[in-house]
């Protein structure tokens, strides 16, 4: 016996309307592949290139609580801004971010990262200097690698001192695609 899509949708809608959902998520189409996008009442909490939800759900539950539910409506605003970004119509995101449960150093680095402008790149070392830890380039690299909200927090704009792209959580192909979209390559 199968559940009709309509009944399923009505439940998910009602759950969000009643404020019972700690974290809503959905999969968003993009030119760099499907994105797993999660939004809490505090803001955008996660974007992942890995759309198999199993591990993601556990991770979200640890951040926000167990009421994690797929619900297209909660990610509508983020979806629209991502669409505009990929169409080249948006250079900055107006989304509040949920950076709960991240260590203070990580939050400091991510705030600085958010200031790297569209279409430009910086280096791990430069970012380290800007947070007052000039010798912490490697630690900054780790923060980039674990960035919970790629694209919106633009870790793709951080490259090696020699100008090579170095690495990207979503794979170098995606990093290249994002920088090309922004005209940085």
């Amino acid at each position, binding site marked *: *016996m*199968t*559940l*009709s899509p309509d*009944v*399923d949708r*009505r*439940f998910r809608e*009602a*759950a969000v309307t*009643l404020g*019972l*959902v*700690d974290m809503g*998520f959905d999969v968003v189409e993009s030119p760099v592949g499907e994105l797993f996008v999660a939004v809490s009442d505090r803001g955008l909490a996660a974007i992942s290139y890995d759309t198999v*939800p199993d591990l993601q*759900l*556990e991770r*979200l*539950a640890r951040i926000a*609580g*167990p*009421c*994690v*539910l*797929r619900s297209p409506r909660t990610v509508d605003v983020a979806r629209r801004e991502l669409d505009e970004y990929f169409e080249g119509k948006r250079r900055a995101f107006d989304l509040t971010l949920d950076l709960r449960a991240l260590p203070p150093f990580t939050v400091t680095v991510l705030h600085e990262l958010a200031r790297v402008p569209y279409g430009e790149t910086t280096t791990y070392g430069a970012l380290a200097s800007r947070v007052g830890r000039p010798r912490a380039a490697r630690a900054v690299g780790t923060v980039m690698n674990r960035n919970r909200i790629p694209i919106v927090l633009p870790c793709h704009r951080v490259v090696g001192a020699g100008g090579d792209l170095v690495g990207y959580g979503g794979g170098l192909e995606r990093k290249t695609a994002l920088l090309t979209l922004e005209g940085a390559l």
Partner: protein
Amino acid sequence: MVMMHGVAIPPFERFYEQHRAEVLRLLRRQLGAERAEDAFQETFLRALQAYRRIEHGEHLRAWVLTIARNVAIDMGRRTRPGGELVETAAEDGTSAYAELAHLTDGLPAKERAAVVLRYGYDLSYDQIAAALGSSPGAARQAASTGVRRLRRRTS
């Protein structure tokens, strides 16, 4: 695998995916296809409402089926003759619950459900309240009245 306590609470999405088909089957049997849809929504909303306060991930199936039965009753249709509020079929082939179900046979439905969910399934009163559509205080009351009734019966 025996892990009575400390079983992680699954993210609600997983809980929902795992139990929605069975819940819908039960509600269709009891209410017919059309009214089952409203009852389905009500069941999972009640579960979601209590989900933040549950203490462990054990017996979630029994819990959600109990909610569904109770929602069906609230929607104005009696369960099958002899139908029970609480899901007493053992999930893993062990007989502890069956034994408790036997002991509590003959208690009023709500009291029996409260006793079995509390002492058989180790659910919190918050969770039991969600299942019975009552307050945690009323759930506690139902469990203790049930236990007192059992004591009188066995003494």
